[in-house]
């Protein structure tokens, strides 16, 4: 098998070439220990198996960024057979800077001049033959976006893998004696790469290579240091700028000998577009418009799309229920209960897949087009003040800067932020944004306690989150993240490119797959734990008896009235009643999800076929006797549901989770939370949606079935609007769901930060809601006023924070 490393500077179109040769035979992993994506493609060409690893895009092989370290370690540790170097044909000079460094490694290189179509359009003529001669390696002309050059690249890989590396050498002039000296010192090294390259890396004080060589040669660092000083005293030059200058000069020579500009360089499309997109007055409206479109298309339309995908998930659920043991009236088998719980948990997460897919596709488009760095360019000044980065915009918007979003794609899109501290601060603040699944929860509470002022409260809730996020970012950046490394804001604004359909779809699908693989699996594991904590220890003997009596009563009642019916012999045993009742309930739920007249007829036909004798009871038509039974059935079903709900409530109350909720009351009472709210918050950790379901079922009073959850809560909870405000504020600050926690873990690459991301918001939330509730009750502030005061103070604090500069590393050195 031929091992190939794909290298190139950012924006050289590396991924389009990768997609061109690998097609869909690729998968994503991580480089060991870091969050950098490692894409691997496996394919064969002329019966040769090829494995291609996509190295992170790097401008150089000499500085200390994470990507470069990863790329270098891969080359040194894995020693690929061939390096394929992608070069942007329309900007050869800068890209050759990296090419030289790759050629020095001593591994055969194939240079691919990508985006040849763009170069031709701009009137750039390239003599590939000559470049090949000058560099001593194969040079292929290609265009990943247009699908040109795939076979030639594979052909070149196969051929080159059988040859040894060319003897390309840059003459480093004054430095040559020192290179030779160093080379002779490490001649015995076991690292199977070019010794001259290792020597150059040493003199560049490259940390990765120095560390590797130090194992073999103990004093290598000191002797290199001495050489650097010698060079400095001899020529008054530092090695790094000296090497960079020579490499750029060499690139310049090749550029002038092999590249011709046929057209006078006129204004490019990129220049024209930037005049509008980065215009002082138009930049913000355009940015807002784009953010709005992303939001509309993904969150709003994606959500509508779930109306079509949800029935599929519901069908899956019904299919599962169909094979489970049927309930015996109020006695539901544990396996049925458990499986339905698991299917519900999975469905709740799978439901978001259409939204995520659209989102990830749109992000991929914006990345490919080149708008992302421009967004950072426009907004950097604001975000810098809060310890964030211009590139934090998109994660925060996805997290829900407008009405509602999702922290999962938000956190996942922090990957590209170059500044480590800003990246961590963004990862940890995105979960504060307005989660889409929190919206039903707010609606429930607002509907119960703030019917009149709902719009104003919703405005408070959805905008306060942005200010809270900024405050938290600033707090973290100046405290726990204070010592983190910051990066200089040196960012390329690449030329605009049309994205390829294939590239966008592949990337979106890969990211969705990561979500399914990493998030859904772990959430399901947690769902099992939660199920157990809600089920056990279960009901007391007394309660079981009590509910048995209730169940018997309901059955007796049915039996008494059914005796009068002509169909009594069909329902005169318990088993027959159970079967009929389950048949009835299934029919009702199938009809509920069936769409339109045809759907309803299909369900009818299906049930008719299943059991013709019973069908008349669920759809009686003109048959009066059957209609009587149907009425009784409806009553019996209602009775059963009421008993089941009571059982559930008592179970929750007695469950381990209920006990925990109760044991937290002494602490949470200051925020006005009773155990029910505590349980709702605890269960919402699995998936936000379950908070509403739990609260809803806890507050139903079981008397009037048609009472809405809002009304039930307002009447039965004994809460005041001030309670509600404390609950809302806690929900705003409350820890992210497990799904988010997992992506925080993935992106921050540490459990420590994940735990921090859980407990910091809880602490903050409990402190703030407690103070609001305690002081609010003391001074008899109304709920609305309390929210108003909270809002005003958060906004004021954010403004004050923005005025204090964030300490960044001072790059300046005094000249000696």
């Amino acid at each position, binding site marked *: 098998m031929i091992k190939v490393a794909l290298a190139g500077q950012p924006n050289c179109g590396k991924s389009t070439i990768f997609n061109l040769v690998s097609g869909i035979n690729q998968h994503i992993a991580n480089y060991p220990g870091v969050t950098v994506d490692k894409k691997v493609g496996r394919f064969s060409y002329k019966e040769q198996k090829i494995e291609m690893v996509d190295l992170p895009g790097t*401008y*150089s092989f*000499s*500085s*200390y*960024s994470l990507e470069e370290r990863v790329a270098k370690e891969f080359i040194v540790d894995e020693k690929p057979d061939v390096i394929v170097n992608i070069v942007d044909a329309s*900007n050869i*000079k*800068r890209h050759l*800077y990296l090419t030289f460094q790759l050629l020095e490694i001593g591994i055969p290189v194939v240079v691919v001049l990508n985006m040849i179509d763009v170069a031709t359009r701009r009137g750039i003529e390239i003599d590939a033959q000559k470049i090949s001669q000058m560099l001593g390696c194969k040079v292929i002309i290609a265009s990943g976006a247009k699908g040109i050059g795939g076979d030639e690249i594979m052909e070149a890989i196969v051929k080159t893998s059988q040859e040894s590396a060319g003897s390309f050498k840059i003459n480093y002039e004054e430095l040559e004696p020192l290179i030779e000296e160093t080379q002779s010192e490490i001649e015995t090294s076991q690292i199977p790469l070019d010794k001259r390259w290792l020597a150059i890396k040493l003199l560049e004080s490259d940390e990765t290579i120095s560390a590797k060589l130090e194992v073999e040669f103990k004093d290598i660092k000191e002797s290199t240091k001495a050489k650097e000083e010698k060079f400095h005293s001899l020529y008054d030059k530092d090695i*790094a*700028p000296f090497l*960079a*200058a020579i490499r*750029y000069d060499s690139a310049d020579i090749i550029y002038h000998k092999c590249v011709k500009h046929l057209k006078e*360089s006129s204004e490019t499309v*990129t220049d024209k577009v*930037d005049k509008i997109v*980065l*215009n*002082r*007055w138009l*930049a*913000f409206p355009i940015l807002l418009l784009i953010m709005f479109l992303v939001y509309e298309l993904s969150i709003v339309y994606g959500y509508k799309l779930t109306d079509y995908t949800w029935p599929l998930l519901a069908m899956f659920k019904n299919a599962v229920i169909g094979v489970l043991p049927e309930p015996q009236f109020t006695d539901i088998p544990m396996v049925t209960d458990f499986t339905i719980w698991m299917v519900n948990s999975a469905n709740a997460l799978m439901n978001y897949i259409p939204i995520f897919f659209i989102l990830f596709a749109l992000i991929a488009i914006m990345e490919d087009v080149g708008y992302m*760095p421009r967004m950072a*360019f*426009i907004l*950097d*000044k*604001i975000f*810098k003040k809060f310890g964030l980065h211009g590139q934090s915009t998109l994660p925060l918007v996805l997290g829900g800067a407008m009405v509602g979003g999702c922290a999962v794609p938000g956190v996942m899109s922090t990957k590209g932020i170059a500044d480590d501290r800003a990246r961590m601060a963004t990862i940890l603040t995105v979960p504060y944004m307005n989660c889409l699944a929190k919206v039903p929860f707010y609606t429930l509470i607002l509907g119960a306690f703030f019917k009149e002022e709902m719009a104003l409260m919703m405005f408070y809730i959805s905008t306060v989150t942005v200010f809270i996020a900024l405050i938290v970012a600033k707090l973290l950046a100046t405290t726990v993240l204070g010592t983190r*490394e910051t*990066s*200089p*804001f*040196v*960012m*390329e*604004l*690449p*030329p605009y490119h049309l994205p390829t359909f294939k590239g966008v779809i592949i990337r979106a699908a890969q990211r969705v797959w990561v979500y399914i693989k990493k998030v859904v699996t772990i959430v399901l594991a947690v769902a099992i734990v939660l199920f157990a904590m809600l089920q056990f220890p279960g009901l007391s003997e007394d309660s079981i008896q009590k509910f048995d009596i209730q169940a018997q009563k309901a059955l007796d009642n049915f039996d008494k009235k059914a005796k009068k019916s002509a169909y009594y012999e069909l329902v005169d045993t318990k088993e027959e009643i159970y079967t009929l009742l389950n048949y009835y309930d299934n029919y009702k739920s199938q009809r509920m999800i069936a769409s339109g007249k045809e759907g309803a007829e299909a369900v009818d036909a299906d049930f008719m076929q299943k059991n013709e004798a019973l069908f008349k009871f669920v759809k009686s038509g003109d048959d009066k006797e059957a209609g009587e039974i149907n009425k009784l059935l409806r009553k019996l079903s209602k009775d059963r549901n009421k008993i089941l709900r009571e059982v559930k409530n008592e179970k929750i109350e007695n469950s381990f989770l209920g006990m925990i909720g109760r044991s937290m009351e002494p602490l949470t009472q200051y925020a006005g939370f009773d155990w029910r709210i505590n349980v709702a918050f605890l269960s919402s950790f699995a998936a936000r949606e379950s908070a509403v379901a739990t609260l809803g079922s806890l507050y139903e009073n079981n008397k009037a079935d048609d009472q809405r959850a809002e009304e039930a809560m307002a009447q039965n909870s004994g809460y005041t609007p001030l309670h509600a405000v404390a609950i809302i504020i806690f929900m705003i600050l409350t820890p992210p769901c497990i799904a988010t926690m997992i992506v925080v873990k993935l992106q921050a690459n540490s459990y420590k930060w994940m735990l921090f991301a859980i407990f910091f918001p809880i602490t903050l939330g409990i402190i703030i809601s407690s103070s609001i509730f305690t002081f609010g009750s003391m001074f008899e502030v109304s709920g609305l006023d309390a929210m108003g005061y909270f809002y005003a103070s958060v906004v004021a604090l954010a403004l004050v924070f923005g005025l204090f500069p964030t300490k*960044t590393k001072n*790059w*300046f*050195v005094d*000249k000696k």
Partner: protein
Amino acid sequence: MCLSHIKKGQKCRLVSINGEGKLKQKLLDMGFIFGADIEVIREAPLYDPMELKIHNYLISLRKSEANLLEVELV
């Protein structure tokens, strides 16, 4: 003079980098070498960072970092 003081549309030549470590290496790798021609394209809408053209490509720098680059007008 400092690069941060160069106006939109003006061209200049790099004289020296008063930075160290990571910043200096990064700038070198991006082509900020002695004698490189730099053109100031524009400032961001909020006046910081600034957009430059160097070696025929576009790059953005915060003013705080542009302060460290000494240039001469051409």
